[in-house]
């Protein structure tokens, strides 16, 4: 069996291409089991949910930081100022300087604000953070973020929690084509087949939360997503059969040119 290439983000190597979130679980125990079953090595946690000053905080305690990269996120931040403030609080409290930057001024669809995200990313990168920004599937924004030094871009497939799949497929395809940093498809993926689809397209990784946390059997679903991501990535690296416009007709349409020369 060929060894698949690892995922490298900011010089750190990961063997799993599935990132998971920690919201919406029915209990901390189920969350821990689901994370283990997912095989994820990067686990994101909303700073709003944890009490960084409390060493016995439930959620913080539940995630073994030797085993997982604890990736704090700024979910709930309405603008750049708020997101930066939270990231700095987390770092001051001893978190690694990694941050999943979420600036979502609308609390309903939780769609990311491109202007504030870019502003915050630029400043946080200068302050030494490894920034993983959550964005709409906007190829130009993805390039702008890459230019200010973010370590990934994280375009959404559909609004957070919607389980609708790759509704932004065409734009994500462009982002993948153009990106020089890993592209992590974040939000909206509702089924392992969606995750596989993103990986088959050439995404570097996917992030899943709602679809695992709210499944009837979150542990089983976490494993299913692990397999979906692996299958999709393996298919991609194996060279997926292209839907081809190229030279398929059994008697080529321009064959007459060659027969004329013959």
């Amino acid at each position, binding site marked *: 069996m060929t060894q698949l290439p690892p995922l490298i983000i900011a010089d750190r190597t990961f063997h799993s291409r599935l990132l998971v979130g920690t*919201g*919406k*679980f*029915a*209990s*901390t125990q189920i969350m821990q089991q689901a994370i283990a079953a997912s095989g994820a090595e990067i686990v994101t946690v909303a*700073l*709003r*949910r*944890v*009490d960084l000053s409390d060493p016995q905080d439930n959620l913080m305690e539940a995630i073994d930081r030797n085993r997982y990269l604890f990736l704090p996120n700024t979910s*709930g*931040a*309405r603008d750049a*100022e*708020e997101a930066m*403030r*939270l990231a700095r*609080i987390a770092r001051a409290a001893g978190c690694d300087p990694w941050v999943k930057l979420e600036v979502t*001024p*609308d*609390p*309903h*669809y939780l769609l990311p604000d491109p202007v504030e995200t870019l502003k915050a990313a630029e400043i946080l990168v200068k302050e030494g953070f490894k920034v993983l920004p959550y964005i709409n599937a906007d190829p130009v924004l993805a390039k702008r973020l890459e230019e200010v030094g973010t370590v990934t871009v994280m375009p959404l497939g559909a609004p957070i*929690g*919607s*389980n609708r799949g790759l509704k932004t497929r065409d734009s994500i395809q462009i982002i993948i084509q153009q990106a020089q940093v890993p592209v992590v498809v974040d939000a909206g993926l509702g089924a392992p087949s969606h995750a596989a689809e993103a990986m088959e397209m050439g995404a570097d990784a996917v992030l899943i939360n*709602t679809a695992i*946390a*709210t499944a009837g059997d979150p542990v089983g679903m976490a494993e299913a997503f692990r397999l979906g991501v692996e299958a999709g990535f393996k298919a991609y690296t194996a060279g997926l059969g292209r839907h081809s416009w190229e030279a398929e007709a059994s008697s080529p349409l321009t064959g007459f040119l060659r027969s004329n020369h013959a």
Partner: protein
Amino acid sequence: MSFWQKIIQYRWDRIHAAICRKTAQDVRQALQAPTRNFDDLLALLSPAAAGFLEEMALAAHGLTVQRFGRTIQMFAPVYISSECINSCVYCGFNRHNQISRATLSVAEVEKEVMFLHGQGFRHVLLLTGESPHHAPLDYLIRIARKLQPLLASISVEIYPMATDDYRRLIENGVDGLTVYQETYHLKRYAEVHPAGPKRNYRWRLETPDRGGQAGFRRLNIGVLLGLSDWRVDGAFVGLHAAYLERRYWQSHVSVSFPRLRPAAGGFQPQFPVKDAHMVQLMCALRLWLPDAGLVLSTREPASLRENLLPLGITQMSAGSKTAPGGYAAKENVEGQFEISDLRSPQEVVRMIAAHGYEPVWKDWDAGFLNAVQP
């Protein structure tokens, strides 16, 4: 533009008639619609929907789990003053009621909150009657600043204020505003609020607008079930919430639908609301407002709270006291109304976990607001 300009386009009687005309077919359509319009809400609130409660409950449950996960946000009310210049006929704090009243000192409020903090609470709701003399703005600001280091989120349910006063509360660490219209029926509103500033229907109706303009992150509105026809009040509170979500798009909107409880004064509800109606209202609101918070307090009995839990509830209080100082700071002060679910927070949390839900104590961070440090 405020909700006043919107609501005057509607007539209570016409809404009532439209609800009564809805058929089983209308309900089926409303249930199946991928996005719902106001007519769908009316169908879901109608007598015709009574036969579809199970379908509504299933749909509401599914939607809630998808949007909020299997989590329940825990909060505690902290009554800080029972002084009041209003005479709401249903309320224990009615100025005509001869009860022992109190306004807590800042130190007493802190003592109450320390007690709740020990139980695990990080989100609290500060409540007063309407008495700006006893609980003026600067008193509320001093309390907010004192409590900030202890808490993740501070909301207020106090007398309606002007936008600038709300801004000052936000600057000092208050992030949520709760204000119930009680009933949207204009005439009935006047009957149950015979005197005092609360008599001004429009000023109260526009309070969430002022809160939204000031920038509160959370706006919580509600109706007091028992004052008027719950179906029509349900339609109006749904309309109000949808309006707020659209207009103050950066604030999260929640809806409460408390039922009248026995209180000093002995008011009897003229429009009693049965459990089945509670369920129907709650499911209809969830299907109409997929992202709104739905709040359930200890006014409801323990068994009903358990049964309502999976249907769409997102926030719960527990172990509540409705008298100022009732947790730790004072004795022998009377409460606003009688609590029904008397279980301790620990018991309620065990119940929530037993139903397969995670009680969430902290879902906000004072760090979001650039509040003045104490």
